């Protein structure tokens, strides 16, 4: 197990260092990237064999249990797919996108991309809540460089807002973590500072007043990183300006990592504070996030911003699922994280392809994709159905379970309002996507740019959400992983 962890921690920086030194040709870089991705995916597969889902692994610094394995599963899968799609994407950008005349930037891209994923691995592997904070801040810093990667004025603007808003938010999370440490110091002394396992064992002893204050700051801090309204202002800018594959990672993986850290902190805080205080806060933030997304999704003109607001909708769904805090709801949230990551990544990749085909991200200038670029259009249509939660795609099942749990918990008014808001986002997305797909073509597209291998990968991603959501019992490992992870969040004892 230890060796596997060393590979996971050691290999990405090695490749990043190699990529940034510019000693490899672009072709070699693509191959090295694929090899790295394959080794990491293989290492993760081996880790799943070594670690039973209901067991834990710890050596004091690194810590792995079902919860971190589930998130690692999401991040590694996205990294794997992004790594395989990188060449297609970068080649197209290099011929007629922002990388034209900037061929040396590919090394820089790979270095930043790999380091970005590496910081997310660190978030998921560390045992210490303080170090988790450090790693989350590190993800902000690396991804800020990726957001500004296009070197345009808007990219610069997005990066500046991203780093300013997120750094301030994350600073507040540090304040919350410090207060948590103080609560630990007063009761448990200075042994094992901020160690998650140690804190979890003694969670009930901690001072509830201090923990309440600590949770306020932690929620606002990591909430900024998740993209909860009203701290979401950076989110549409960053998602729309980052390179498309990175937008997919920001939406699918980074947001998941922030939710992961929030969950870890909740496990510590719930036993002493009680659940009611936390739930009300989460309800308010989740509701606000979806409510803010509705008007912006309806009047949107930029395709990637539309996807960003759809991400906010899904973030709202996940946080409200977390707020219900029943076994079914939390397990649906974890499943939704996976489904949303896969489908949103596919959609961002498709959006990138559409932008390359039409040389614009303005949806008002894109018409008749069905006739001009039939394959891209078909996949966009499938992706649209998937993200809106139509059966048989995975999001349908997770979203439906969460909404059902709202009603089951007796919050009829809240549930109905929530469904209404979701319908608003649905209206916006359906209107814009169908208008792009149908109508008569007005501007000539550059032609069909989606090649066969990317289509196969996208199809596998969409089908994987169906497979995992509908026949989970066919994958005993994942099923056990999901139920153990749910138990960890709810506060059962998978130790």
């Amino acid at each position, binding site marked *: 197990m230890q060796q596997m962890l060393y590979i996971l921690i050691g290999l990405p920086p090695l490749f990043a260092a190699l990529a940034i030194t510019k000693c490899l040709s672009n072709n070699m870089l693509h191959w090295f990237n694929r090899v790295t991705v394959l080794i990491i995916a293989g290492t993760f597969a081996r880790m799943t064999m070594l670690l039973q889902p209901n067991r834990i692994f710890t050596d004091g610094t690194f810590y792995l249990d079902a919860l971190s394995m589930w998130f690692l599963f999401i991040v590694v899968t996205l990294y794997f797919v992004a790594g395989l799609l990188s060449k297609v994407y970068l080649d197209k950008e290099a011929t007629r996108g922002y990388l034209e005349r900037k061929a040396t930037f590919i090394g820089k891209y790979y270095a930043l991309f790999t380091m970005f994923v590496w910081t997310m691995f660190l978030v998921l592997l560390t045992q*210490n809540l303080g*170090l988790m904070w450090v790693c989350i801040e590190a993800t902000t*810093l690396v991804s800020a460089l990726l957001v500004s990667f296009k070197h345009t*004025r808007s990219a610069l603007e997005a*990066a500046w807002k991203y780093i300013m808003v997120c750094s301030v938010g994350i600073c507040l999370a540090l304040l919350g973590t*410090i*207060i948590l440490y103080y609560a630990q110091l007063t009761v448990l002394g200075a042994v094992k500072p*901020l160690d998650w396992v140690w804190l979890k064992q003694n969670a009930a002893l901690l001072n509830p007043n201090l923990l309440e204050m600590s949770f306020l700051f932690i929620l606002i801090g990591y909430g900024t990183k998740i993209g909860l309204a009203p701290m979401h202002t950076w989110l*549409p800018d960053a998602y729309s300006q980052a390179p498309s594959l990175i937008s997919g990672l920001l939406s699918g993986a980074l947001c998941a990592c922030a939710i992961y850290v929030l969950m870890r902190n909740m496990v510590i805080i719930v036993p002493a504070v009680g659940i009611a205080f936390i739930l009300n806060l989460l309800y308010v933030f989740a509701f606000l996030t979806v409510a803010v997304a509705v008007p912006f999704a309806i009047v949107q003109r930029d395709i990637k*911003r539309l996807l960003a607001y759809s991400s906010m909708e899904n973030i709202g769904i996940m946080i409200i699922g977390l707020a219900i805090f029943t076994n079914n709801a939390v397990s649906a949230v974890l499943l939704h994280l996976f489904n949303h990551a896969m489908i949103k990544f596919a959609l961002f990749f498709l959006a990138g392809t559409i932008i390359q085909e039409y040389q614009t991200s303005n949806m008002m200038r894109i018409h008749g994709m069905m006739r001009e670029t039939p394959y891209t259009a078909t996949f966009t249509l499938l992706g649209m159905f998937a993200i809106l939660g139509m059966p048989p795609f995975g999001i349908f099942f997770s979203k439906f379970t969460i909404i059902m749990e709202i009603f089951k918990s007796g919050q009829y008014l809240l549930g109905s309002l929530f469904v209404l808001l979701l319908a608003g986002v649905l209206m916006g997305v359906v209107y814009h996507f169908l208008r792009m797909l149908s109508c008569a073509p007005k501007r000539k597209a550059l032609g069909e740019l989606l090649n066969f291998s990317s289509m196969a990968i996208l199809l596998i991603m969409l089908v994987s959400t169906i497979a995992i959501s509908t026949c989970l019992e066919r994958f005993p490992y994942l099923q056990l992983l999901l139920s153990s992870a749910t138990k960890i969040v709810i506060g059962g004892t998978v130790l």
Partner: protein
Amino acid sequence: MEQLLIFLLLIVFLQTRIMNLKNAIICLMLQSTIIAGACLMVGMDGNGGWHSFLPTILTVIFKVWVIPYALFTVVKKLTNEQEIDSGINVNYSTAAAAFFVVLAYMLIDKMLPGMGSRDILASAMVLIMTGLTLIVMRSRAIMQIIGLITVENGIYLFGMAITEGLPIIIELGIFLDVLIAVVILVILTKRLSLSFMTTDTNVLSKLKG
């Protein structure tokens, strides 16, 4: 300790009034020096051996030397850069800082009653809140960076006062993060002045809705 805190508050008030970028950086240096002094005093009270002095050393190296140096190198390259001087804005900021002093004491008394280090905690809160207003009210990129470091300094002082020092590894991580954040912000500021011909963040208004 009281004398240090009085100086700290004085500098915070100065910061709300300074419009010249170079003076603002010098002010930040002074602020970080005082934080280092406070760390030293907390370190001498504790008996953790050499590692209780680590925060002082790190603060001096990173926040008194490296970060202001990096900021100075940018400011030197900018010409004719000064925060737009509007008397009302400045007076409001100072009044806000004064209000924050009262608010901070009220908050600390309510949230953490009976703490021995009440004055330090209140000053830390003032730093955090003033830093936030600097980020919101000032439009020059450098001024916003200074605001961010002020917030960070405040949180650090707060942490020192209530926990007598975080674990070494976390402390190192925090300093590394702050350092990298400043480096990246400095790079972005340079790019701002290259592509917009100014570091006024009010020009960043293209992305909306």
